């Protein structure tokens, strides 16, 4: 599988030995988690592409390197960014875990849960309660290092609590399909919301919520505040990185592949001798587990847990992130979480927008549903392909050819956008509905070939422009 593969396999085979098969690596920001044996794309005739791809890899632009650059960027965040930005980036990492965990069930198993806030809130309240109830006790026994011990106990208890809830909720929910599944999960999360806000046992302080302060650890005579912004950032970075890697392994395991097959055709999987409901249930619990991790670590960041954590608007966050980012790419929901969070932050800087930020979200969602059929991640992949093409033209035909390439592709795209807008009034509504309804629908994450089918002609590079701003901050790996 060296560089001179057939054009039909588009050079993607080149990075297989390095990235896909031999080194099962963690999430890959550069390629947006697009992995797998068949990376095909429309435009099979592009011989230049395989040339470019292999050339780039020869020059060291492997997935490992892109991942490495992203890791370096993450490590440098507290050094180069102001304090509030560190806070925001911490929140982004946790929302990325939340959305990716949700997507294990949505994009990878074909079940749209509208109640994942339940597990987010369960874990958040578990850590807050542990600190309130066990914190003082442990402080009496352990002294200086008790906050750290409390945190460890809270993580264990929080995850256990999440699993204890997820197992029966999942067991009952996976019996239902599609909209009924969405509704029953929604009901469970809203029931939990009602319990939190009515607080029948006087535990959760009703609508006020509970404060959560991690406290200060005395280590070797020095005081270390666990909630220190930079320290906590690194803690979250480790947790989020580990979670993303674990989820990446899960979707590439035999179990994950079976779940993707269930998304495609439950009847077929069951005719192969696999208990579909049981596997959906296991994936439900796995998904809830990782949502629990996000909930556990978001609570100390906000220093408070409130019933809103279990409200349906919280459940909507990963749904929106997955739709914006692209549910069929492993890193799609993470990209979506990035867009979600930073768009809100951007809007919050302008009071006029801030008051109506939901309106702007609505607009973004409409745009995504109409023009980025597979989400921003697909747009980024298309942008990556375009840059590769551009680089290929530059290397083979020189600078003026490259400029000509930019001009011609951009005007092609502009024309495509104009055509698209012209047709939108009729067709747009239909396709928007299609995207939401076919949860398990679009193409597959480990298989962006499907992405290209629809991304290339219409949403392909016209999506590059809108995704551009999102690309820069998230892909801080780019020099």
């Amino acid at each position, binding site marked *: 599988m060296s560089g001179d593969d057939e054009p039909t*396999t588009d050079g993607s*085979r080149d990075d297989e030995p390095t990235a*896909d*098969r*031999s080194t*099962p690596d963690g999430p890959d920001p550069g390629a947006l988690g697009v992995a*797998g*044996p*068949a990376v*095909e794309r429309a435009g099979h005739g592009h011989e230049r592409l395989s040339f470019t791809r292999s050339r780039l890899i020869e020059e060291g632009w492997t997935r490992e390197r892109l991942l490495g650059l992203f890791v370096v960027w993450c490590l440098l965040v507290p050094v180069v960014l102001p304090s509030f930005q560190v806070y925001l980036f911490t929140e982004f990492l946790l929302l990325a875990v939340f959305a990716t965990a949700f997507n294990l069930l949505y994009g990878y198993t074909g079940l749209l849960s509208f109640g994942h806030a339940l597990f987010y809130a369960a874990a958040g309240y578990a850590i807050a309660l542990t600190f309130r109830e066990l914190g003082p006790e442990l402080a009496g026994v352990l002294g200086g290092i008790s906050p750290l011990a409390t945190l460890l106990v809270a993580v264990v208890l929080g995850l256990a609590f999440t699993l204890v809830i997820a197992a029966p909720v999942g067991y009952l929910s996976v019996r239902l399909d599609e909209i009924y599944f969405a509704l029953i999960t929604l009901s469970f999360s809203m029931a939990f919301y009602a319990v939190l806000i009515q607080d029948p046992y006087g535990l959760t302080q009703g609508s006020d919520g509970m404060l959560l302060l991690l406290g200060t650890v005395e280590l070797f005579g020095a005081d270390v505040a666990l909630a220190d912004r930079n320290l906590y950032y690194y803690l979250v970075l480790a947790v989020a990185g580990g979670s993303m890697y674990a989820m990446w*392994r*899960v979707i*590439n*395991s*035999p*179990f*994950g*592949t*079976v779940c*993707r*097959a269930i998304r*495609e*055709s439950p*009847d*077929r*999987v*069951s*005719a*192969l*001798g*696999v*208990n*579909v409901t049981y*596997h959906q249930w*296991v994936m439900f619990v*796995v998904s809830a587990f990782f949502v629990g991790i996000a909930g556990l670590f978001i609570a100390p960041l906000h220093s408070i847990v409130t019933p809103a954590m279990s409200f349906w608007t919280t459940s909507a966050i990963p749904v929106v992130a997955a739709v914006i980012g692209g549910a*069929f790419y492993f890193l799609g929901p993470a990209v979506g979480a990035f867009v979600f969070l930073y768009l809100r932050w951007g809007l919050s800087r302008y009071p006029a927008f801030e008051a109506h930020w939901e309106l702007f979200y609505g607009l973004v969602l409409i745009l995504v549903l109409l023009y980025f059929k597979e989400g921003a991640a697909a747009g980024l992949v298309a942008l990556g392909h375009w840059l590769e093409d551009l680089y290929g033209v530059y290397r083979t035909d020189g600078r003026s050819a490259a400029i000509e390439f930019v001009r011609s592709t951009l005007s092609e795209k502009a024309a495509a956008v104009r055509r698209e807008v012209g047709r939108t009034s009729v067709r747009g509504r239909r396709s928007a509905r299609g995207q939401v309804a076919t949860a398990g629908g*679009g*193409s*597959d994450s480990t*298989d962006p*070939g*499907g992405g290209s089918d629809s991304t290339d002609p219409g949403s392909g590079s016209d999506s590059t422009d809108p995704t551009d701003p999102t690309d820069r901050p998230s892909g801080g790996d780019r020099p």
Partner: protein
Amino acid sequence: MTTLLRTVDLRREFGELVAVDGVSLDIVHGEITCIIGPNGAGKTTFYDLLTGMVEPTSGEVWLRHDGELQEITGLPAHEIADRGLARSFQIIEIFERLTVRQNVQVACVARNDRTLDLTTWLDADEAINEQVDEILELTGLTHLAEKRCSTLSYGQQRNVEISLALAIESSVVLLDEPTAGLNPTDSAIVVDFVNELDERTDTTFVVTEHDMDVVFNIADRIVVLHDGRVIADGDPGTVRADETVTEAYLGGSSI
């Protein structure tokens, strides 16, 4: 002449309609049985009853498993498949957005009871991928392994469909109109293919079909269903000569 699959007075009603009306059949090892009948004769419902996808109104289904016939009536579909009864679908049911290799991987993972393995890197699992390669080799799909199924031609998708049924290594494979929607050339290829598989594997095939050329090319035994009842059962020569069959099937003209 070991009986692998037996139905006893199998019956299924959908409201007023009796789709399968008291069918008793023995499927024996090594014989290609063709179940024929006009549209609406109950062929697909019969398969659905055998494989647990539809529950019978009355009657029994027995399947040889661990060396003896065991009753499987009313078991869930996945347990029946697990005990060695595989099927293909008349309307293609494959994992469209996965590659051919991934499709067969799923079946091989199921065959090896590895579906709850959450930690292995599937593409690096030699045991499973060896089996996958064998199946792809057997069904001639090796060169298409890395293609997404939705990009394949209809005939190739049929082939994947059959590969999935084969990959779980069951004792009996039910093929539901394997040539449906194929042109004569592709049909001929599928027929040769089923004959070849029958010789190369220990699997026993049951095929529903309404293309008579196909039927007489592959069948060792023909069962004719009409309005949910068996109206003829025997070797091709006998069935061809049977007058009730000609009557029911083609309104009098000969087959």
